[in-house]
């Protein structure tokens, strides 16, 4: 059978809402699938509204973490969406093996978080993150599929208009989704938290509830993962339980900030969440229940707003003797950024320059590690910023090329903004090139170059 130039090949699945066929078209070798909404049951508008939503949003999405949109069919002869076929299986195929080794769960979590951040940057919240909607490309990249429940900040939200009852995949729905709030990107972090919990413990944190039972997550906290699987490290429990916080503002501010913690376990600030081995007492739960009875949809921030309030800012700190004034100027600039971007995460980075050829002796005359010394200095610099510990991290990178190391770090960790000090330009500097100018030229993000008042005065002659 041929529909508008697409030849139907193999019927691969029938979900609750759509039929999926593999299709081909002439002069196109790309493997494709066609999704056809199930419109047989005309009493239920959900399949058609989800289909409309996907048809609106998918053509807007780009990048490796989404299936490439190919075509959409009008009602006549039949509605459909054709998109790239992602080979391989979804994470659902791993559910038989749960609990998975925690290290693997962390690796999956970091990748999914980065894919989510990429989606959020495109002004879209997925709102149906679950294992069957997460696929892995052969190149290892995560692909998030199925945008039937998604929300694009700049397009009409057809689902919110159509339904007066909460909808979604109940085990993974964030509390605010239960309250029919569809505007917070941190809802996706909750769903990812459910997924990580399930992978690491073998159980769903809120079971598989139905009807009014889905509200229970507004007051009943899940059994801490370490009570179910003692292999789960405390820092991972910290991360998972933070994702599962009832109020979005208690979770990570962005998926990029979550990815940063999953990639850097040693930097995770442990709180009482990490040590918990039992659920909260009856009294505490009861108080939350009382509060939840009155819970209303929150006044929610928009997607772009939430992301811009909570950037990852890399402060590249030079700690060499004679740079004290520059370090101070840098500190003032970072503080100014923090006063505007109130949920920013600050990554303080210092580069320990190594030579390219020789084996470096990274100890001083007394045998103290230079690395540790630098870290101590860096923490001293950062502590005066007054940022809560869970939003600041310290790294000393050993590298022969400081600028390249900074740019790499920024790229790997989704850094939004680099703040770096520079000496006033001089003939020698222009000739040799400076670290800051190389960072400006190569960084994937915004860069602010800070100079000291003293250098500015010297320049003015």
């Amino acid at each position: 059978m041929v529909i508008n130039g697409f030849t139907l090949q193999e019927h691969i699945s029938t979900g609750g809402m759509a039929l999926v066929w593999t299709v081909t078209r002439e002069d196109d070798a790309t493997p494709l699938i066609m999704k056809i909404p199930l419109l047989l049951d005309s009493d239920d508008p959900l399949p058609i509204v989800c289909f409309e939503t996907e048809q609106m949003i998918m053509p807007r999405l780009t990048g490796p973490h989404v299936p490439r949109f190919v075509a959409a069919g009008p009602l006549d002869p039949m509605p459909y969406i054709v998109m790239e076929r992602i080979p391989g299986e979804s994470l659902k195929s791993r559910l038989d093996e749960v609990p998975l080794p925690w290290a693997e769960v962390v690796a999956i979590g970091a990748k999914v978080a980065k894919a989510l951040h990429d989606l959020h940057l495109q002004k879209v919240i997925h709102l149906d993150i679950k294992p069957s909607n997460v696929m892995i490309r052969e190149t290892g990249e995560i692909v998030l599929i199925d945008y039937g429940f998604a929300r694009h900040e700049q397009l009409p939200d057809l689902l919110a208009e159509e339904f007066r009852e909460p909808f979604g995949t109940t085990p993974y729905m964030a509390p605010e989704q239960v309250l029919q709030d569809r505007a917070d990107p941190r809802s996706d972090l909750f769903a990812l938290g459910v997924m990580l919990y399930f992978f690491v413990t073998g159980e769903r944190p809120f079971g598989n509830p139905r009807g009014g039972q889905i509200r229970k997550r507004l007051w009943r906290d899940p059994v801490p993962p370490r009570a179910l699987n003692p292999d789960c490290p405390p820092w991972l429990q910290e991360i998972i339980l933070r994702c599962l916080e009832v109020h979005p503002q208690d979770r990570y501010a962005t998926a990029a900030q979550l990815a940063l913690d999953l990639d850097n376990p040693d930097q995770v600030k442990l709180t009482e969440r990490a040590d918990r081995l039992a659920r909260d007492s009856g009294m505490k739960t009861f108080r939350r229940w009382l509060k939840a009875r009155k819970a209303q949809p929150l006044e929610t921030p928009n997607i772009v707003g939430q992301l811009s309030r909570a950037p990852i800012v890399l402060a590249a700190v030079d700690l060499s003797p004679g740079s004290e004034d520059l370090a101070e100027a840098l500190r003032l600039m970072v503080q100014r950024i923090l006063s505007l971007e109130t949920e920013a995460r600050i990554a303080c980075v210092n580069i320990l320059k190594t030579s390219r050829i020789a084996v470096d002796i990274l100890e001083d005359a007394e045998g103290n590690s230079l690395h540790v010394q630098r870290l101590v200095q860096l923490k001293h610099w950062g502590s005066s910023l007054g940022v809560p510990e869970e939003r600041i991290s310290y790294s000393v990178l050993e590298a022969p090329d400081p600028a390249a190391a900074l740019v790499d770090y920024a790229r790997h960790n989704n850094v939004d903004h680099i703040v770096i000090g520079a000496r006033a330009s001089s003939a020698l500097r222009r000739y040799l090139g400076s670290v800051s100018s190389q960072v400006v030229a190569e960084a994937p993000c915004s860069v602010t170059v800070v100079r000291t008042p003293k250098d500015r005065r010297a320049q003015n002659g």
Partner: protein
Amino acid sequence: MLIAILTDIHGNREALSACLAHARLLKVDRFVFLGDYVGYGADPAWVVDTIRTMVDQGAVALLGNHDAAIDGPDEDMNSTARQAIQWTRGQLGPEQRRFLADLPLIHEDGNVLYVHANGYAPRNWDYMDGPMEAIRHFSRVEAHITFCGHVHVPMLYHMSTTAKVGSFSPVADNDIPLLPTRTWLAVIGAVGQPRDGVAAANYAVFDTARQTLRYLRVPYDTATAARKVREAGLPEKLAVRLEQGR
């Protein structure tokens, strides 16, 4: 084909010039004007002449309530609007008045309807300014997509296959797919007298091939437009409106 849709120009030369220049940069193929060329602003004659020339070149222009009031009754209008209409009558020659009087109320292009105020009773000038009004429109109009003005504030209403009506406050510079599965009522904001607190002209571009609608905002010289309103002796309120966009 790209169709630029402009409405509620209200004698604002600066705003219309800015929108036309903007639309030409986008290389639009066609212009449709949804009415209200006159009233409120200081340059009604220039605006009417510009629209007449464009109609001669293939543009579509429809009748608005202020245009109809030039040679008709004005007692339904508030006092400021009536004052402006009375001043405007003195600014227009017989040719310009005849052009306005002869304008059609609606324009149909396949299943797309263009109209000044609403699709079910174009001459009663009912405002499409809320979901209830949109429901009244959807229940009586067959067209798949309707473009109207009259309200001055941009809004997009849509009705699902199960007859649920939603409203969406559009963001500028953003292509919205007008899906074939829904019925659409697109209220285009005013060119010459914006009222949503943004002192920039509104218009929209409809891409017929992709079936997408893009709402646009065009900054223009509000200071000059407001100064001319004052110099013409029109109510001060009308000048302030242009400066504040409300």
